């Protein structure tokens, strides 16, 4: 059976947007499609550019797929109409209001077409357009396509042109209210915080997010970022953060994020891992009370490994303990990673054995 490479991309989701293709990837699985926009079947009927009097002076330029098209896309008629006119004005080098309007239609049909966004920015600059209005347009596009790279990049450029980051925290908070882990939004927020020095209330905001979801790894990362850019990890800050993290762990012990964060915070200490407060006793107490989360056990392994590095005389006792913990992880508490724990047993024995 011959395999044809003609691929219908109408069913492709927004994941393809993540690789910044120029193909028509209009919606993600489950995302509602605005039918009124491209085929006129619902709501307002689509008026083809080729039928608009104000565009009568333009001859549309069809797409040239060559004699043997590959990964041929089943474009809708409205899509073809818009992009034929877009090509025509690009060839003309037209940088007008109507071209700007045309880019809006082109973007609505494929928000991942990075060339259209570049053309739009050329027009905006040429016309000296109202950038506050552009920020509004950008916000709408971000809300409709929160995981699209081009909308966030466009936002950053417009904000840079304006030199005003006052709306960026609010924008990202709106996105976080729908998806508190949106990577693009976190990247944008960090950029805005750094560029416009807006750190004042950031730790409070992180607290709020962690109140809502103590498992939000992005919020924990943001905490580390904020502190590193403001006070830094001084002795007092380390102590404060250790207590904060211990409280979060007390809420939900089996949660990877605060354990990672704890490790990250104490790494800023100059002394040994266990020198920060009573970490070893605190772990031991939880273990004695029957707590067997793999994160607790792994942390105890790390504390013991650190101690074995620094105090060779303690190695025989601690190694025995470590191997027992690895065994319990491999056979009982973290069986999915049994091959890894076997490796750790071999590794520790090799490094600290007799």
């Amino acid at each position, binding site marked *: 059976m011959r395999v044809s490479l003609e691929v219908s991309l109408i069913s492709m989701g927004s*994941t393809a947007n993540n690789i*910044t293709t120029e193909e028509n990837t209009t919606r993600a*699985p489950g995302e509602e499609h605005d039918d009124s926009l491209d085929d006129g079947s619902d709501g307002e009927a689509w008026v083809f550019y080729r039928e608009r009097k104000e565009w009568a002076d333009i001859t549309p330029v069809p797409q*040239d797929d060559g004699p043997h098209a590959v*990964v041929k896309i089943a474009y809708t008629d409205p899509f073809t109409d818009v992009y034929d006119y877009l090509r025509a004005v690009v060839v003309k080098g037209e940088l007008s209001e109507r071209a700007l309007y045309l880019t809006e239609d082109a973007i609505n049909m494929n928000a991942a077409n990075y060339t259209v966004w570049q053309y739009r920015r050329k027009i905006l600059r040429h016309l000296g357009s109202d950038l506050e209005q552009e920020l509004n347009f950008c916000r709408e596009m971000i809300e409709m396509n929160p995981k699209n790279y081009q909308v966030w990049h466009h936002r950053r450029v417009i904000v840079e042109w304006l030199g005003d980051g006052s709306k960026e925290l609010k924008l990202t908070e709106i996105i976080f209210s729908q998806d508190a882990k949106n*990577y693009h939004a976190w990247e944008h927020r960090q950029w805005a915080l750094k560029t416009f020095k807006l750190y004042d209330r950031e730790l409070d905001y992180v607290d709020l997010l962690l109140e809502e979801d103590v498992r939000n790894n992005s919020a924990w*990362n943001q905490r*580390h970022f904020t502190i590193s850019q403001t006070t830094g990890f001084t002795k007092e800050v380390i102590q404060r953060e250790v207590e904060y993290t211990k409280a979060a762990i007390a809420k939900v012990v089996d949660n990877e994020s605060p354990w990672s*964060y704890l490790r990250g915070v104490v790494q800023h200490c100059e002394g040994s891992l266990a020198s920060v407060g009573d970490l070893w006793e605190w772990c031991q107490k939880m273990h004695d009370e029957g707590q067997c989360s793999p994160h607790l056990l792994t942390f105890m392994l790390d504390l013991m490994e650190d101690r074995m590095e620094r105090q060779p005389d303690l190695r025989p006792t601690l190694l025995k303990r470590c191997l027992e913990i690895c065994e319990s992880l491999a056979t009982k508490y973290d069986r999915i990673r049994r*091959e890894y724990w076997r490796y750790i047993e071999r590794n520790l024995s090799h490094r600290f054995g007799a």
Partner: protein
Amino acid sequence: MAVLYFALSGLDLLDGLSELDKEERQHIINWIYSLQILPGNDRDEQACAGFRGGTTLASCRGESSCDTVSQLDCGHITMTYTALASLIILGDDLSRVERPAVMAHVAALQCPDGSFFSTRGGSENDMRFMYCAAAICYILQDFSAINTTSATKYILNSMSYEGAMGQGTHLEAHGGSSYCAIATLHLLGKLDSSLSRTQRERLVRWLVERQSGGGLQGRPNKPPDTCYAFWIGATLQILGALDYLDTAALRQFVLSTQDPITGGLAKYPNSNPDGLHTYLGISGLSLLRKDNLKPVDPALNISQQALSHLHQLHKNISKNSTVPC
């Protein structure tokens, strides 16, 4: 172009390329080359070289085109990588690749901090395009265009407190960016010299901890997603630690995302399949060596067979040329 690469490499791993006859293969090769931008000798023009993502603007170059066209009709680093990968998969000898122009395009996209943009027309810069740059340099065997010192610095600066890499400094550690970082270091031949034993151990631990309910997640406390079978799996393979995963459970998860009616693999079970997840799911399964799939090279994400063809091209080039390529 990226969609073509998913389709071709996916077919290759499924040992299905023979379904394309010689004529059809040549048509595809010609189509790929038709998307190559052929600038003049002007260095500035060459910065816009490389391969296009598709035919949107392909018909716009001509006598009547203007500055706007040449400013917008630029190569895109991901499309250049996927074009070259697709050509190799199809058995092409890359003789029609405008090497100096492609290398000028890659060089022009590097930022002072070591990372890469995707296209001259303006884009974000992050670890994804770093990987594409490294892959292009490896394929064309020419690393002179990029500053490998600043690239390595960017990668190490992207290692967060979690022990894995984010898209950039201070950003959250992520399976996709960790793959791009480690594959880049591997392709540049700098993996062993760049990571200390402790850093390597912590990274392996982070990667292995991504296994959740059989599948692999991209970040802690996120649901498992098929494509991380490749991003996380390939990173572990490069680090020699793939066997630390429960490979049977991973395989079961990936196969559970198949659509029984249309075929293809999706992000999650019971959701719509798409080209990206289908290809990366297959590529991830290939790493596990449990299904009847051709082995994949984790660093370039093409079959080992395609990689052998590439290595043969490298041998032929160094035998025949008197100047470095």
